[in-house]
Structures are given as structure tokens and as C-alpha cells.
């Protein structure tokens, strides 16, 4: 279950109640210019190949605005609120895949049994070379599980283990307290949780006008703060965490950013002459203080339809190994299914930063327009919203029974390290080719990456990310004589500056992520029937993963209130990839040595699909088998 912070909960509920009370009378005053209430009901029904129904999400959203005007020294005072509630029926309608009866008994590969045509053992059927190995099958039964990654790839001689997939109130195995621990109702009704996510936004705006004409505009409350100029991939737009469990990376960020309690102040200077010869058409300085308790991205819990990078399944399986022990395929000698005991390998816990002043997050942005150039300079100190697995925790040596910190043992805690970011963005319109260019870049320090060359199995690296985008309208008379098509392309680049990789006896070891990688996206959008019918296709290609997503869709505005969107999402490419899985890391030397004289904690590089290949496959490659057709109907009021 998620953390309950009494003060915050009280505050949220109070504000929610206030917002609701404020919105109710507004419904009778919709025509008034200073008050507005509107909303929508939406049904999103998705079907996934080989799975059946993967989403039956029903959303009711209410948005309200009350303009108050001048209050004391403040002007343009207004209150805004957005309430959102969803019910995803997939957990009831397709419960064999995603609900209380999901999963089942599993078999784990034991290639040592070859040439047996069926070289598998059931969960709990691995070897236990010493009394410390093995686990209680009654505590960790072979039921309600899948094999990690089974939807994407065979075990193929690599590591594999069981992952419980039922909601945490049905099966608590592998549920990580405060992080990935949703019960059935929290899956069904995603916003109704201890963080009061049904209050999607609730903030007050107010301006302070100075004699100079400059304005200090402030927004205080639960909100989204958007930085940057790019779509789909986030380089600067990192202030709010993101809910990837909603639809992986494919929903509009507007719908999947997780709003936070933030104070945002903009000192708006307008046209400004800094000194003689240097004048800006617009200049703005922004301070963002995210004082909310830290929240990570919602990466999806194993058993949900969308689990980005399948990381939630890896984490749940690993936590189950730590808590209850379990069978790991092809482990001993790189080939024998092995039963580990509790507290020997796996994920122990997640360290979510508690609320403290030092754990809040601060951002600065200088943004403006200089001639034909729009620009921003950004700086942010924040907590990584992605988890980092840090090894080096005390664990039991299954051979000796001793508990100690063992080098390169696959036993982790989850941390969210502090990250510092500096960056900037530009946009520029090139008259000559009638094209708008957008550039965004960020340099971060403090990010952590899995690294099988290090004893704690992670290392820190500075990272450079950038996006170069171009937008152009092109007439294609054969397809539409009256309206141009929008072409919008982007190249997203990521460079891990302190990347480490070495060739070892059995393969490469080090950081599985690509040292340099690029993802290219292309949006083509057309408009027919006065913009009421709009087909589009979005493609994204991960260059190093050799994985491509293609998402065609057609949006039909039936009238001002009713919109239908039919679409699909297909992937092509290589899918799963292999990398050093640390079976040959020799943590419990000499018992685990892969070859005579192997130094303790030094990987020999034996590889498999799990667990680190996911970082090479990326979000597109890891969702290779998640082809979907999608129908969304929205009625606005």
C-alpha cells in the first residue's frame, strides 16, 4: 500500500472537498464569463494480440475555473481545479490476464537436463546444493505466476524466475511496500489512492504588478509544470513524474504527467533591453519549487497491461526471491535451475525519499524571445524518477549461511538518487525552407545505471540528452487538395558519458545501456472535413535496439461534444536482447566461480535475455509483443 502521510492526506482531502464544493455552484453559473465548468467522459477500449482485452478504461474528468479578479495587491486571481476518476474494467473483464485469477503454474528451464526434449522444472523443482538453498513452496507456491519476460522471449538458456502477477491484495508476493503495491481497487480505480490523485490539479493563480510594467505571476498548488519543446520523449520536461502504466509512452504527456504540489513563479519582463544593443522581445524568469513528497514514475506493476521495460515484473519477481526465495532457471553452472532461499538474492526494499526540505526539488528557467529565436536556459535539482538498483546489501551466502555484503551479488535495494540538470532549448523558423526547428538539450549528473563491472552492480554517469525536431507543412495534392499535412520529425539522442563496457571470457560486461543511442520519431497528420476527420501516423524507431513502433489512428469529431478515435499500435524489430546477467559474477567465491582463478565479484560475461537485456531493447523493443488495436470515445460537456 502506498505511504500515507497524515498531514498531506488531510490537506489533499480538505482541498478536494473545497474544490468540489467550489465547483458545484459553478455548474449553475456556467454562462458567466468568470466561471467555467466542463468535463468529459471517455471510454478507451484496447485489444491486444494474444491477450484479448487490454484496456477498458472509463474516465470522468471535471475541470473548473473561477476567476476572482483583483484581491488586495494581487490581480488576475483565479482558482483552477481538475478532478479525474477512472475505472479500468480490464481487471474484471479479463481477470485471467490482469485480475485476481491471472497467471498460473510455471516451468523454468534447466538446460542441464538436455538433451531431454522438455528440459524444464516446475517452480520449486530446482536443485538445492546446500541446506541453505531451497525455499518453502507453501509460502511461495507455483501459482498465479508468469515466467519473467515470457510474453516477449523464451528462456533460451538464460536466467528466468517466477513473477506473481495478481493484485497485491490477492497475492502480496513481490509487492514492494510504498512503491509497487497496488491492490485490485487501486488498479481498477487508479486515481483513488493515498495521494488523492483524483485531484488531478488544484491551484490558485495570482499576479503582482510592478510599476515597471513587469509582472510576477504565481501558481500555487497541485499542477503540471511543462518545460521544453519536444513531443513524446522528455529531455527538459522532467519536473513531474509520469504514469507509464496508463499507455506506456504513447499517451499525451498532458494526460500522464503526475501533478505535484508546486510553487511556480514567473517574473514576466516582456520586451526588455538588458543593455544597449541587447534587447529581448520577451524575457521571463521562472522559479519552480516542487515541495511535494517525492513520487517516482509509475512504471506499471507486474500484472498490469502496461509495464514499461517490463521493469515492474523484474522488480516484483526479484522482491519475491528476496522475501520468499524461488527457483531461478539455468543458474548453477549457467545451466541448472536452482532454488534460492529468502534473503539471498533479489530486491530487498525501495528507499523512497521521505518529505524533508532537502528532498524537495528546485528549478530555474530563463526563457525568452530574441529576434527570430526562442530560447530557454534551464536548471533543475531533483530526484531521479526512475529507480536505481544498488547492490552491496547484506545477504546470506547460500553455500555457507553467512550474512555479509558480497561483491556483485544480485541483491539490491531500490534508490532514487538526486540528479542535477542543466540544459536549454531553442526554436527557430527558417524562412528559406519554411520549417520550424526545435532543439532541446540537457546535461545531467547523478544518474545511475546498472553496471556488472562494479561490485555494487551500478555506477553513476553524467548523461547528455538532446532532441532536434523539425515541423513542416507539406501539401500533397493527390491526398488533399485544400489542406496541407503536418510533418513533424524528431531525433532524440542519449550519450552516457561515463559508460563502461568490457569484453570478458564469456561475453561483454558493464553498463547494458547503449553508450550512444538515438530514437527517431515522425508524425504525419492530415485533416479532412474541415478538420473534423484527422488521420495520423506516428512512428518511432530505436536505432540501436532496432525496434520500431507504428501507431496509425483516425480521429473523428462527430460534433463539438463527441469524438471517436480508432487506432493501432504495432511494433516491428528485434525485440528482446541479451546481456551479461551476472550468473557468472562469482559473488560467493569460490563456490560460484565460473572458471578456476576467477576473481570474486568479477563477471565472466555469461548473458541472457533477463534481466539486463531490457536496457538494450528499450521501451519499444520490450513491448514488441504488445500490438494493439484501440478505440476511444470521448463525450465532452
Amino acid at each position, binding site marked *: 500500500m502506498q505511504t500515507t502521510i497524515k498531514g498531506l492526506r488531510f490537506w489533499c482531502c480538505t482541498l478536494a472537498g473545497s474544490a468540489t464544493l467550489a465547483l458545484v455552484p459553478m455548474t449553475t453559473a456556467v*454562462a458567466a*464569463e468568470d466561471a467555467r465548468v*466542463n468535463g*468529459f467522459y471517455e471510454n478507451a477500449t484496447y485489444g491486444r494480440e494474444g491477450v484479448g482485452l487490454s484496456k477498458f478504461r472509463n474516465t470522468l474528468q471535471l475541470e473548473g475555473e473561477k476567476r476572482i479578479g483583483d484581491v488586495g495587491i494581487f490581480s488576475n486571481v483565479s482558482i483552477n481545479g481538475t478532478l479525474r476518476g477512472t475505472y479500468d474494467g480490464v481487471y474484471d473483464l479479463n481477470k485471467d490476464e490482469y485480475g485476481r485469477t491471472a497467471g498460473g503454474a510455471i516451468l523454468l528451464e534447466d538446460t542441464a537436463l538436455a538433451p531431454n526434449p522438455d528440459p524444464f522444472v516446475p517452480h520449486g523443482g530446482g536443485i538445492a546444493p546446500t541446506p541453505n538453498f531451497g525455499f518453502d513452496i507453501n509460502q511461495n507456491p507455483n501459482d498465479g505466476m508468469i515466467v519473467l519476460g515470457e510474453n516477449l522471449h523464451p528462456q533460451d538458456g538464460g536466467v528466468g524466475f517466477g513473477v506473481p502477477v495478481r493484485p497485491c491484495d490477492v497475492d502480496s508476493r513481490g509487492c514492494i511496500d510504498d512503491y509497487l503495491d497496488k491492490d485490485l481497487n487501486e488498479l481498477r480505480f487508479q486515481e483513488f489512492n493515498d495521494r488523492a490523485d483524483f485531484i488531478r490539479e488544484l491551484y490558485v493563480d495570482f499576479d503582482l504588478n510592478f510599476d515597471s*510594467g513587469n*509582472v510576477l*505571476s504565481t501558481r500555487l498548488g497541485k499542477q*503540471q509544470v*511543462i518545460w*521544453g*519543446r519536444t*513531443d513524446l520523449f522528455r529531455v527538459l520536461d522532467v519536473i513531474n513524474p509520469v504514469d507509464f502504466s496508463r499507455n506506456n509512452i504513447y499517451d*499525451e*504527456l*498532458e494526460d500522464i504527467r503526475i501533478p505535484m504540489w508546486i510553487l511556480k513563479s*514567473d517574473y*514576466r519582463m*516582456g*520586451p*526588455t*533591453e538588458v543593455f544597449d544593443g541587447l*534587447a*529581448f*522581445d*520577451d524575457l*521571463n524568469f521562472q522559479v519552480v519549487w516542487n515541495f511535494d513528497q517525492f513520487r517516482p514514475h509509475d512504471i506499471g506493476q507486474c500484472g498490469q497491461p502496461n509495464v514499461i521495460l517490463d521493469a515492474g515484473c523484474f522488480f516484483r519477481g526479484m522482491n519475491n526471491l528476496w522475501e520468499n526465495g524461488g527457483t531461478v532457471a539455468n543458474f548453477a553452472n549457467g545451466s541448472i535451475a536452482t532454488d534460492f532461499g529468502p534473503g539471498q538474492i533479489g530486491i530487498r526494499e525501495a528507499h523512497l525519499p521521505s518529505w524533508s526540505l532537502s528532498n524537495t526539488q528546485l528549478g530555474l528557467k530563463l*526563457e525568452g*524571445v530574441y*529576434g*527570430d529565436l*526562442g530560447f530557454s536556459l534551464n536548471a533543475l535539482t531533483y530526484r531521479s524518477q526512475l529507480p536505481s538498483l544498488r547492490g552491496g546489501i547484506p545477504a546470506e551466502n547460500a553455500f555457507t549461511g553467512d550474512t555479509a555484503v558480497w561483491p556483485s551479488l544480485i541483491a539490491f535495494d531500490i534508490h532514487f538518487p538526486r540528479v542535477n540538470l542543466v540544459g536549454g532549448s531553442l*526554436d*527557430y*523558423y527558417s*524562412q528559406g525552407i*519554411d*520549417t*520550424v526547428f*526545435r532543439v532541446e538539450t540537457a546535461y545531467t549528473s547523478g544518474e545511475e545505471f546498472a553496471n556488472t563491472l562494479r561490485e555494487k552492480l551500478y555506477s553513476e554517469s553524467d548523461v547528455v540528452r538532446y532532441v532536434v525536431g523539425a*515541423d*513542416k*507543412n507539406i*501539401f500533397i495534392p493527390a491526398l488533399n*487538395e*485544400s*489542406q*496541407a499535412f503536418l510533418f513533424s520529425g524528431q531525433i532524440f539522442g542519449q550519450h552516457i558519458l561515463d559508460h563502461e563496457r568490457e569484453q570478458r571470457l564469456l561475453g561483454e560486461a558493464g553498463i547494458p545501456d547503449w553508450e550512444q543511442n538515438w530514437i527517431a520519431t515522425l508524425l504525419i497528420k492530415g*485533416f479532412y472535413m*474541415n*478538420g*473534423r476527420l484527422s488521420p495520423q501516423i506516428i512512428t518511432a524507431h530505436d536505432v540501436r535496439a532496432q525496434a520500431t513502433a507504428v501507431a496509425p489512428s483516425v480521429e473523428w*469529431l462527430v*460534433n*463539438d*461534444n463527441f*469524438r471517436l478515435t480508432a487506432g493501432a499500435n504495432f511494433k516491428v524489430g528485434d525485440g528482446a536482447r541479451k546481456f551479461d546477467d551476472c550468473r557468472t559474477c562469482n559473488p560467493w567465491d569460490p563456490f560460484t566461480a565460473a572458471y578456476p582463478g576467477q576473481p570474486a565479484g568479477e563477471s565472466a560475461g555469461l548473458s541472457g535475455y533477463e534481466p539486463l537485456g531490457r536496457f538494450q531493447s528499450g521501451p519499444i523493443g520490450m513491448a514488441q509483443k504488445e500490438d494493439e488495436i484501440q478505440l476511444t470515445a470521448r463525450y*465532452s*460537456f
Partner: protein
Amino acid sequence: MTTTKNKSVFRWLMAGCTAGLMSTALMADEAVITNSFYPYNTETPSFDGLKAGMVIDQSNVAQFKDAIDPAFYGFIEQGMTTITVGETTSFDLHPNYVEATRVSLGQVSLGNEVGEISGWSAGRPFPEEPDANDPRAGEKLAWNYKYGYNWGDSAAIYPFYWKYRDMDSGKVERTIKFNFHFLNYKGRVTQEPTPEITPNPSDLFRAIYVQVLDPADVRNTQLLIHRAADDLKRDNSWLYLGFQRRVRRLATGQVTDAFLGSDLMIEDFEGYNGRISDMNWTYKGTRYMLMPFYNHNDLTLDAETHIDSDGYQVVSFSGQGGCFPDITWQLRKVYEVESVPVDESHPLSKRVHFMDAQTFTIPRTVSYDRKGSLWKTFTIGQAHPDHHLPKNKGSGVSIDDSFSMIDVQASHCTTGQFKGQVDPELSPPQMFNVQHLRATGS
């Protein structure tokens, strides 16, 4: 003595001649001003058989063919609409604008290239009657439009309703509610500061800010256009998309694309919303024509679309598909000007503008596609400011009050219903900064 006397007489003669010449010149200048700004002082337009109060319909339209532009003539001929004729009335522009014209009379000249002008600071740059023998007469008229008093120094259409209509069935497919705001940075004559807002680092001439209020799928879409004083420089435009909460710079090519799916492109706004240098301009002639000028308060209005506390109602629409405003038309002095896009990939081959000689608004424009076929026809109804909202009285602004853009080929139209307000409080300069889009939108 004789010499002295002769000198004295000569001086008097010289002084008298100079004074006479100056007086003649002043009188000539004043005649230019009067002719340009008060054309109906001395002459009342007339057309055989035409009189106020009559209705021109399918049965009698042929008689008035020369007083109606060909596209609108076609509509009446096909029985799609009628014209109710009103009295010709003078739409006097603000005296400060007239005075600014007087002050700079004769000081404004065109440069070598289309789009170059010098000597202008405010007022109508070329008030003289266009000369058919002047190859750049059309361009001068275009400048008169660009530097026209249009919406004055600033104004807002607040709110502004656009309806997308199927012309065959009459079905209203979509209703979009906007606010439009206009601000002149230069050439200001009535609202402080005059004649220019400073600082003005990019040397802007004008800015337009648009905000969408309804419906939900496009709510908070905002458009900001910065037009440089240097006509050879392209506009800078930004679009804020409500569903993305992000400001995106627009490629200028997008100003020739349908705006939010309507039948208008951004370039169509106000009759023509682009650079002088984007077009080749040709003056085709002057004549009296029926134009959509009227007193808003004298009309039978639409009681449903807009309701507010001051009782203001917008212009109603009827005719084929509801694509024609229920207004009256006046016989007025009109300059016919043709504009041909310089860019051969422009979706239009040409526009024919019918500019009102007194106000230099463009109440009628007919557009042709690349093949030269009639494509769209644009009507902007002009309301007299003294018969509109009380706050507009005496503003000297010919109020854009209704529009109809008809796509003849698609049998589709977009209609516009305005609440135009000449009120500087509604359009402060801070509103026309990029940051305002972000502050307002998210």
C-alpha cells in the same frame, strides 16, 4: 525712390504669389484629405434603379450586376441569398488618424521593392486617388489597408463565434468561441502611448492574439502573430495547444492552411493578413458597389448564440446553409485590387479584394484556386461604431461585425459573429508576449 518702390511692389507680388501658391497647395491637400476620408460629403453614390429599402433577389439581380461583385452576384442569381439595400452613410474614421494623414501627406514613398516604404509614421500613407497608369497603384492601396485604421490602435473581438456549416444541409458542424485581440505597436494615433509602444526590440508593427474558449477539444488553443514593421520580414507566429500545454512556433506556411479546420486560413483574417511583399498587387478600378455596411443596432439580431449582461446580441445568419449575414448593404465607393501570391506553391492563384475607399477595410474578397477556379468568397460586415456598443461610439473604427467565408467548391462555409470592442483595457501589451500564452494556457 522708384527703385525702392519697385522693390516693395515686387516683394508684395512675390509674397502674394507665394501665399497664393501655398494656399492653392493647401487647398489641394485638403481636397485630397476630403476626397479620401469624406467621399460622401460632396457626392452621393447612385445606381440606376437602386434605392434604400429595396431587396435584390433572383428576380432583379441582373439589373444590378455592375454594382455587385461577381461571386456574390452568383449567390443571388442562384437564389442562395438576397441583399437588402440601406442608405449610404459616412463611416468617418477617427480625426486623429485623419490628422496624422494630413501631417504626413506627400512624405510617404514606396521603395524599389514591393514591401518597401519610407516616410510613414501614422495615418493613411497614400490618400491620393489611385492612378490607373501607376503600375504600383495596387501596392499603394494595399499599404493603405495595412496601415489603415482597421481596429484602431487596439481592440478586441470579445467574444467571437465561428460556426462551421454544411451549405447544402445547413447543419452547423462546429461552433468555436474565441477571443481575438489586436494591438498596433506603431502608427498609433488615439491610445497612449502614441505614436509607438516602446520598448519594441523587434520593431513590430502589429500583433494579433487569439484564444479559443470552446469547445473542449480546442479550448485554450492560442495563436500569437507578430508582424514586423519591415514588411520584407516574415511574421513570427506561435501556437499554444491546450491539449499539449506547449507553445509551438509556427512555420509561416501554416498561415495558408485552414485555421482550426475552418474555411479561413490565418492569411485571410481581416481580408488579408500577410505581408505586402507576399503578393503582387494590381489596381483594377474604382466604382460604386454594394458593400456590407450597416448599423448593428438597427438589425434583427441572433438572440441565441450570445447572451450577456449588457444585452448585446450578435448578427444573425440565414440564406443557403445559413451562410449569409442578415445585414443591409450600402452603395459605396470601392477600389478593386487583385493580389497574386509571389510563392507559386501558395494554395491560391489570386484574390480579388473590394476595398472600401473611405475606411480601407476589405469587406469583400473573392479567392481563386491554383487552377484559377472560384474557390472562396469572404464577406466582412462593417458596423458603424456609433450604432453599436456604447463604448464604441465615437471611436472612429469601422467595426468588423460579421463574416462569412464560403468555400464554393466544397459547398461549405464558416460564419463569424462578433462582439467587437474598442477598449484598450482588453488588449494590454503584455497580452502579446509569448509568455502570456503559457501563463494563460496552463
